């Protein structure tokens, strides 16, 4: 029997809430994984749940449950009302005052749902052999993880909002290894797309194999200041770190490097970062955010100037500014928090080789370590990460490099963006990030 969500909302009001919101999430996910020639693990999941926010006397209470029965949802409502009593009142708490709609964009590919898992498995056949065919030093495909999702989100709240959005996404991660006399190197690649058939699996394998080959025989270099080019995947990963610091909650709570920086120059004029919920290639494209507020394209950093933060309803209320439609959630288990939809470093006009010639001498970074485990501190702005890549001189590769670190401040990195490439990559990791190669004029490299 269908659950009457509107009734749950009105019951919540009767039981003491001033405002109630139900975030109903339905998801079908297919995962395929394996290594070498054995791509044999296939799982299909039906994962549904509801996240319930209640506001009572300016206190917030939140409960989530995967038990989507009348009884299960009512229990969650009771939990939310109960746990709200432990919260402290905050005058800025509450639902947004306006909502978007579900009309217009449909970010949906039926094939994600209609294509049988076994048919998807066929698309992944032969990738191990394809990797080995790239070069005799390639030992093969050491890891493959494919995932697709069809998600439907419905938001019902006590302000009369009842809107639904649907989206699909498909993504693949591969790791390819090279082996030369026991010297083992790996290269990984990530791709995402809205449609299953838009994913170029052979191309992804070639990319990962190519990276792995470039890193073979890598050695540390001596410490020096030099130009650094972040290859698109590493630039996406850096963008991910910055996205946490650009949330208004972090800034308002004083735990972001961008405190007191809105309106100021935080990067070079070559750097523009846009949040784009309408990006055709983006995995997090959406008509409205996780609170139901309309999402619109917005420049966050314009030619180096910080023009906007990500806001949810409560941070916008506190700042006294207009809603920006960034109250996003990973899934029903999370509260909405200021987060981007598709965050993009806007591309420039240069191929990666042209950036290398522009720099003359420098380090092309192919892999970064420690970014998300403390190496990039979005509070202090300090950066100290392990990297591997290729040292180049006069624009030409000279030697593979590993076991070095790149250090400095994230502000130095942003202010020294000399140019951006035209080789855009879109990935789905913890968010949807999009970036080309980025040339940084100089950073400190620590080695032997």
């Amino acid at each position, binding site marked *: 029997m269908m659950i009457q969500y509107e009734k749950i909302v009105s019951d919540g009001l009767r039981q003491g809430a001033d405002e109630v919101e139900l975030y109903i999430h339905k998801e079908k996910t297919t995962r395929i994984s394996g*290594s070498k020639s054995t791509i*044999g*693990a*296939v*799982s*299909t999941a039906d*994962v*549904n749940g509801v996240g319930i926010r209640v506001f009572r006397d300016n206190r*917030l209470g*939140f*409960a*989530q*449950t*995967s038990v989507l029965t009348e009884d299960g949802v009512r*229990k*969650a409502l009771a939990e939310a009302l*109960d*746990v*709200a*009593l*432990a919260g*402290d009142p905050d005058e800025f708490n509450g639902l947004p005052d306006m909502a978007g709609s579900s009309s217009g964009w449909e970010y949906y590919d039926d094939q994600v749902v209609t294509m049988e*898992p076994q048919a998807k498995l066929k698309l992944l056949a032969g990738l191990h052999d394809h990797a080995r065919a790239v070069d005799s030093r390639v*030992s*093969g495909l*050491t*890891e493959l*993880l494919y*995932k697709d999702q069809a998600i439907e989100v419905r938001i019902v709240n006590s302000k009369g909002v009842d809107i639904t959005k649907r989206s699909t996404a498909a993504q693949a*991660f591969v*790791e390819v*290894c090279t*082996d030369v006399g026991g010297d*083992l190197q*790996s290269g990984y690649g990530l791709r995402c797309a809205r449609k299953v058939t838009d994913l170029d699996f052979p191309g992804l394998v070639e990319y990962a194999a190519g990276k792995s080959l470039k*890193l073979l025989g890598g050695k540390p270099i001596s410490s020096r200041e030099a130009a650094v080019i972040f290859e698109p995947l590493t630039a996406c990963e850096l963008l991910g770190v910055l996205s946490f610091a650009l949330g208004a909650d972090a800034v308002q*709570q*004083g*735990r972001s490097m961008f405190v007191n920086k809105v309106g100021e120059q935080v990067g070079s004029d070559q750097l523009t970062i846009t949040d784009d919920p309408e990006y055709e290639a983006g995995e997090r494209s959406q008509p409205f955010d996780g609170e139901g507020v309309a999402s619109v394209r917005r420049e966050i950093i314009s030619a180096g100037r910080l023009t906007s933060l990500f806001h949810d309803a409560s941070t916008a209320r506190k700042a006294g500014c207009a809603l920006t439609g960034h109250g996003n959630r990973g899934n029903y288990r999370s*509260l909405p928090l200021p987060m981007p939809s598709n965050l993009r470093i806007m591309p420039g006009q240069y191929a990666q080789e042209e950036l290398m010639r522009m720099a003359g001498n420098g380090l092309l970074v192919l892999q970064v*370590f*420690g970014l998300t*485990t*403390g*190496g990039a501190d979005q*509070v202090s702005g*300090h950066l*100290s*990460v*392990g990297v*591997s890549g290729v040292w180049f001189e006069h624009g030409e590769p000279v030697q593979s490099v*590993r*076991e*070095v*670190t790149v*250090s400095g401040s994230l502000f130095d990195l942003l202010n020294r963006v000399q140019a951006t490439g035209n080789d855009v990559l879109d990935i789905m990791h913890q968010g949807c990030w999009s970036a080309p190669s980025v040339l940084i004029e100089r950073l*400190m490299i*620590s*080695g*032997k």
Partner: protein
Amino acid sequence: MAIIDRDLLAKVLAVALSRGGDYAEVFAEHSLTRVFDYEQGALKRPMAGNTVGAAVTLRAGERAITAITHELDEGALIRAAETIAETIGLCPAGSHKVELHYQDKRTMTAVDIPFTEWNAQAKAGLLVKANDAARAEGNEIAQVRVLYREQSRRIQIANSVGVVVDDDRDYLHMVAQAFAVGGGELQVGVAQYGKQRGLEVLSGDMPEELGRRAACQAITNLHAQPAPMGPMMIVLSGGWSGVLFHEACGHGLEADSVLSDSSVYRGRIGEKVANELVTAVDDATIAGEWGSYGYDDEGSMGQRTILIEDGVLRGYMHSRATAEQSGVTATGNGRRESYEYMPIPRMSNTFIMPGEDDPADIVARTDYGLFVKDMRGGQVNSASGDFVFVVSEGNIIRGGKLAEPVRGATLIGNGPEALQRVDMIGSDFGFGPGMCGKMEQSVQAACGQPTLRVTELTVGGTGQGR
């Protein structure tokens, strides 16, 4: 009370195998969570969670087909079993019978006072204590955030070999973050506690101690010098510094990396991979420890596995599938983040065993180096063995004494090389709790070690040396 009735489990397994296959399994889970987030003097976002779900898996040769559902009624479970049976479809539908026998319960969780004994307001009060203790450390502390998370996880696994087990895991986790401001700088300090214990651990001054430690670290870092760059001798304090071994070696000893030829430790059982002082272990059977469990998430008994003994590689960590592929007994390391994911080889509590040296002596006998008091996290490239981790609090060692604090140091090295360069191991010991991420899954893993010295690692700082 069992999550799913034993007779229903047997029926589901029988349906799963009704059209062929070698092995079937049901994994069911019920998790209750509470999260309290305290910041700027207020508890803003109290959260309650209730997760229920199951995964039904059928293996046939190299294929493993799984159907995952959030519904645990008979209809949903049978449908899941029928779907996977049809997908494998090796033979016409036939009947199959599975008889299940409960294995002895062997919970590693060590709870005296269950989470349900205190209400939300009482727990919220602890966060205030941590906050107040942090702020009392000085005016430089501009901001404090305290997170409390409790999770009661019950799992149930039944398989076609005839085994059914229950396992309970109760996780209590608190983190204090303090932000110190001065001279245009902002530095953070972090302290955390994580064990499979109950509310009894909150009765003493643990919350205040977390607040104090976080604040002291933030203030120290505010006044610290930039760490030097280049190769240095490193003394790592005991406890969470065990993340060195977790990254340098642990991931490379997970059997899936070994079998896919993407581990620097493949084919090296019986070889010397570390200094002979080093003995390292993965042990899921430590009562109350963060990464422990009685049975892993495939129903294999959690156990103690010797990984390295006196410097020699002795074994890898296996899931059921990798153990079968390798022709060895399962080691009880098949873990999954939740019912939504497939089990893969993971660490539990991984640590270097204590040695003979007096920890104070290790510093005293170091003329110049870096003392690592605390670390954030780390990351490894299992193929090459290259790892990196971030130092969150450290001091220069000069003339055998701890000298000026330094900040911003990243340590980079290569796993096998670093372990060969361990030359002193202390007689002390400690554990720290971590969330280990691998292939989009995050699980509780504790890292531990005594104070130990590595003769050389590269430090990525921005300051000058000596």
